[in-house]
């Protein structure tokens, strides 16, 4: 029977319902911290190591083990991913090996990960907030009917052992700490480059738990027809660049973006921009730096003509050194930059590029070496 609009139905007590922690008995045995090890085309995504570093801290606080989860086809890449997971701190590795897990497809990966979770019952499951991780995490959490907190910037365990996942909301204007109360596992995705990269150790191979999941190609609707790598195109590697030059509306025209690109070329940096430039179509979306774009964590970030809205700030504050160039001395960027120059970036960037070129010329390199 379906309810009709006019039927009198008791209203929920909004604000209290669901706020109490009463973990059902069947979830009480869920233990250990798991990190999904993202492997695409043979390479482990660095965010997986960052997560292992963070997962190690959580596992130690809870007094439980840290596990890496590897899904992939039989072969060297999968074995290497497991070895890397141990090297970055995992005590245990769970492995589903299947030829159907060659390329990422939602259906077989969701099935394999859901099956592993249901069998071995982790308390916490972390994934990278990559296109793969977000695609997979959403499906797995919905299948398991558990909570998932997206794009966390901070993870902790509170006094009663619950995962406290902190994430930016409203474009970074606010942070909120989110708990998963009555369901397990507690799932979270974490953005690349937000957590620090842990030290790699030469820890020997630990315990590997192989798990079989029955899968047949005929049941998988998605077929991968091909893949065009960014190496063959002009897409960015912003998230992992050590030096980044960013351009903003202060550059005035799309033509002036080449000033930022030139500087980037001379110092071997990646270039990106603030959100308005993407909205204007001056730069492709994958070069957007900020809350809805890429989070960067370079050693040096030069922000040229960027005013520094909160959305931009959350994407760059992990940088070791932020240099801001802006005509407006009251621009918010000067509140979080380390070094500021109040000047017109359009005129200043060519000069900066020239001086950098001189300093970094082969001659000066020789001087540095001596």
């Amino acid at each position, binding site marked *: 029977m379906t309810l009709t609009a006019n039927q009198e139905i008791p209203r*929920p007590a909004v604000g209290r319902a669901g706020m109490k922690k009463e973990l059902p008995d069947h979830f009480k045995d869920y233990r250990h911290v798991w990190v999904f090890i993202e492997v695409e085309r043979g390479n482990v995504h660095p965010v997986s190591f960052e997560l292992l570093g963070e997962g190690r801290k959580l596992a130690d606080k809870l007094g439980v083990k840290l596990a890496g989860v590897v899904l992939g086809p039989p072969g060297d890449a999968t074995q290497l991913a497991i070895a890397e997971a141990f090297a970055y701190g995992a005590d245990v590795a769970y492995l589903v090996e299947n030829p159907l897990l060659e390329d990422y497809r939602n259906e077989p990966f969701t099935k394999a990960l859901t099956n592993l979770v249901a069998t071995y019952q982790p308390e916490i499951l972390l994934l990278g907030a990559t296109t793969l991780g977000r695609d997979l995490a959403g499906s797995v959490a919905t299948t398991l009917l558990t909570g998932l907190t997206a794009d966390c910037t901070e993870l902790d365990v509170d006094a009663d052992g619950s995962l*406290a996942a902190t994430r930016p909301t409203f474009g970074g204007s606010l942070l909120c700490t989110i708990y998963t109360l009555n369901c397990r596992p507690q799932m979270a995705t974490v953005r690349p480059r937000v957590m620090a990269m842990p030290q790699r150790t030469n820890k020997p191979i630990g315990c590997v738990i192989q798990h079989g999941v029955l899968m047949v190609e005929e049941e998988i*609707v998605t077929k991968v027809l091909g893949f065009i790598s960014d190496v063959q195109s002009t897409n960015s590697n912003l998230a992992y660049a050590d030096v980044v030059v960013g351009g903003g509306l202060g550059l005035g025209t799309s033509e002036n973006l080449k000033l930022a690109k030139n500087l980037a070329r001379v110092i071997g940096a990646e270039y990106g921009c603030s959100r308005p430039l993407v909205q204007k179509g001056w730069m492709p979306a994958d070069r957007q730096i900020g809350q809805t774009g890429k989070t960067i964590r370079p050693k040096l970030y030069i922000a040229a003509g960027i005013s520094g809205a909160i959305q931009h700030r959350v994407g760059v504050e992990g940088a070791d050194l932020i240099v801001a160039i802006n005509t407006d001395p009251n621009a918010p960027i000067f509140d979080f930059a380390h070094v500021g120059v109040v000047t017109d970036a359009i005129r200043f960037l060519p*000069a900066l590029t020239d001086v950098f070129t001189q300093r970094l010329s082969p001659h000066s390199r020789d001087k540095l070496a001596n």
Partner: protein
Amino acid sequence: MHVVVCIKQVPDSAQIRVHPVTNTIMRQGVPTIINPYDLFALEEALRLRDVHGGEVTVLTMGPPMAEDSLRKALTYGADRAVLLTDRYFAGSDTLATSFALSQAIAKIGETFGAPDIVFTGKQTIDGDTAQVGPGIAKRLDLLQLTYVSKICSLDLDAREIKVDRRSEGGTQMLHGRLPCLITMLEGTNEIRRGSLDDALRAARSQIVKWSAGDAGIEDLSKCGLRGSPTVVKRVFAPTVRTEKAEQITTTDKALGDLADELIVEIFARQPALEHELAFDASA
């Protein structure tokens, strides 16, 4: 062909201010907009309809005022708008939201014809989770195609679709079958200006308003706060670094000298960087 587009009315995050004392969002006077990412989904749906015929239904869950966004979607050319609104949905997290929306989509299917494709934007600009799309797909057992940058081909007779999907480090070319759920990447197209006819039709259109009961939702414990495994325990403003940037004085300096001074400052703070930059630049 029937396409359902899920949209969300969001506060214009560029204009959001945080109350300095209470650390709460100041919504007063903040205009609401259709989540910008959803417009790429809506436009893609309209383009498919223009080519293949059929109808586009826009759906949103939200307070009664979300009707404004639906009417806006009608002016762009959507054929029908459904507003899912009920106090039972208050406090929904992504799991509860995907439940309610999936139920409404099922009801839309029963009432107006089963959808071939359900579209959503990549994510919303207020929540930023990118979870509701995958959640709906899973609940309706639809093939899930996220971060789609291009619909390469659609064959309604063979029930086949080919798309380009953005992934880390490249673009995946995928083949799938209908019905499916697509989350559309930003920058993939540009929302049309609606015609005068569309504007007139939108003004006259009746928006379909459904409560939980109307949408056929029997298990209300899956909705709202009760149906949400996640709860927000604490909301706070990011810590603000108090010291401001060290300003390099610019008065009466040639640009070259200014640049020189800045570079000296950079290398004084990051001594190792000078060697690395020289190395990178020579590479």
